[in-house]
């Protein structure tokens, strides 16, 4: 069990109450997307500040104050945009919020401010340093070689994320953090409560209900939630053949599948209460 969920990006997180929450790590794509969005926001904020400065009617005597404010603003934007947002309650920058991911401490519940600071200080070598080498790549001769080597060196940090199983940036490694998914929980309708026209028609024998295990039940659940007519037809036919079910003339596939889902789940859950978890149809318990 543990190996299968390790592979799907899930990690053990045990609460003080002793329950494993099995957090899901954020996808690499989501993280790159979040970073891109944040960079766009940073640039937009800087441009906005520039426009405010230009159009606020600064008098010539005041240009000095406003220019130093602009320099400070640019510095704080670059160095502390991430830090400030990640220290907030949601532990996520706007980009991360949009991608539904957040920063969390590894193995500890509390994400400390120091971690957030360290995590983002490393961004300087992970992201801005390669960028500056890239800017110098136009140079020729020794300078060009130097910046090329520098670029290769700093790309090790840039792509650090791709080469470890916990998807840690160098900053995450130092700060003891990782990035996890925070999907909005949506409670979907219980399929066992679905309206079935003529439920009393569907009386399955124990042998018919006993044809499948948990794995097939979950597949059936996915099929029923997707409600794709072709798949429904296909799955209904297979199940009917397998259990030897004679469909009556006006029987709808969706009704049959819903009824069978309810019956199968009832049977498997009863077994589960007795301590038997029937894995799949090949499991003969």
């Amino acid at each position, binding site marked *: 069990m543990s190996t299968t969920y390790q592979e799907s990006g899930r990690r053990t*997180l045990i*609460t003080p*109450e002793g*329950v494993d*929450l*099995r*957090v899901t790590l954020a996808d690499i794509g989501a993280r790159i997307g979040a970073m891109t969005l944040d960079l766009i926001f940073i640039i937009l904020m800087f441009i906005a500040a520039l426009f405010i400065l230009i159009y606020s009617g600064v008098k010539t005597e005041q240009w*000095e*104050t406003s*220019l*130093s*404010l602009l*320099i*400070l603003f*640019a*510095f704080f934007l670059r160095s502390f945009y991430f830090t400030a947002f990640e220290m*907030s*309650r949601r*532990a996520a920058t706007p980009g991360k919020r949009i991608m539904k991911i*957040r920063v969390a*401490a590894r193995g500890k*519940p*509390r994400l*400390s*401010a*120091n*971690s*957030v*600071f*360290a*995590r983002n*200080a*490393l961004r*300087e*070598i992970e992201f801005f*340093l390669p960028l500056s080498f890239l800017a110098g790549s136009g140079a020729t001769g020794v300078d060009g070689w130097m910046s090329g080597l520098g670029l290769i060196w700093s790309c090790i940090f840039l792509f650090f994320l791709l080469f470890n199983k916990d998807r840690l940036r160098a900053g995450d*490694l*130092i*700060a*003891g953090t990782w990035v996890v998914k*925070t*999907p909005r*929980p*949506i*409670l*979907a*309708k*219980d399929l*066992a*409560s679905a309206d079935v026209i003529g439920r009393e028609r569907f009386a399955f024998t124990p042998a018919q209900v006993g044809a499948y295990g948990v794995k097939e*039940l*979950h597949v059936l*659940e*996915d099929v029923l*939630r997707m409600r794709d007519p072709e798949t429904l037809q296909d799955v209904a036919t297979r199940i009917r053949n397998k259990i030897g079910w004679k469909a009556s003339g006006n029987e709808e596939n969706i009704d049959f599948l819903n009824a069978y889902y*309810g019956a199968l*789940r*009832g049977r498997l*859950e009863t077994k589960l*209460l007795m301590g038997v978890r029937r894995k799949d149809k090949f499991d003969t318990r």
Partner: protein
Amino acid sequence: MPSNLQLTLKSQRFREERKEDWRALEALLGKVEAGRVRQLSNEDMLRLPRLYRATLSALSVARATSLDQSVITYLESLTTRAYYAIYGSQIGLGRRIVSFFRHDWPRAMQLLWKDTAVSTAILVLGTLLGYFLEISNPDWFYAFVPSGLAGERSPAASTESLRAVLYDKQGQGGLGVFAAFLFSHNSRVAILCFALGFAFCIPTVILLLMTGLMLGGFIGLYASRDLGLEIGGWLSIHGTTEIFAIILAGAAGLYIGRAIAFPGERLRINAASHAGQTGGLAMAGVIIMLLFAGLLEGYGRQLINADWLRYVIGLIMLTIWLSYFYIPRDFSKLDINPQKNKAGSI
């Protein structure tokens, strides 16, 4: 829930009975995450942990008895959110700032003393090397100091113009800009110095040596023109703060690099994250020091032209920093342990 619907399965009944609690928890979490904790009534504050524990136990039960995937997925993401909201809550910003200045920062500095000593030694070594090389042959200057930074200060300049730079009143109108520029430039160098420690200390050592060489080169150039005393004042007014800050940034980098290279009995990854905590804290302090240094360099140095006053200010700043960091005190008394903190457990 339509009444005509029969609840045949235990897992169905289980879900229907608890659904309201789950929704209530969801609504409370929405408020907490939006930062509207203050708007919660006392009753809600008490309900939050109760609902959290109820939901957590529902998750355990559902995993063991229910085969409804949607419920399990829902409960997993709901409890994870609640877990972070309840256990991961931060103490207030005000308290954090107070605790940072009262004990977190000086304690981090005391923890870093070995690295600070090493980093100071490297910088001093670089400075001495730069100084003696520069004295022996002025052309070394070009190797140490990047031409953009040197400006008109080079061995080719006349003694008079070198002196003029030290007491220059040029651009007094733009002092604020100058201070802001210096601050942001130096902070970036310091952050880089820290971050580079990650690569087993080596780049940090190089950066510190280069800074030392540059410093030594400057001092050597001025000393060779009998301006040693003057350059000392010019440097020390802000340098005691700025160079100290860079030394500390280097120390924080070395601390991390050391933890990664020699983790001891701990796992490398744990050693790194442990060191990162202290290093991050030290770096937050370094940025504050550089803010002071920027102000002293931008305003103080340009406005104060008396050598002795420059020395005095520099020494006062150094004394303040040293006594703030290194005067021994009992931190355990001052410690606000966040685990025992009321706000921490909501």
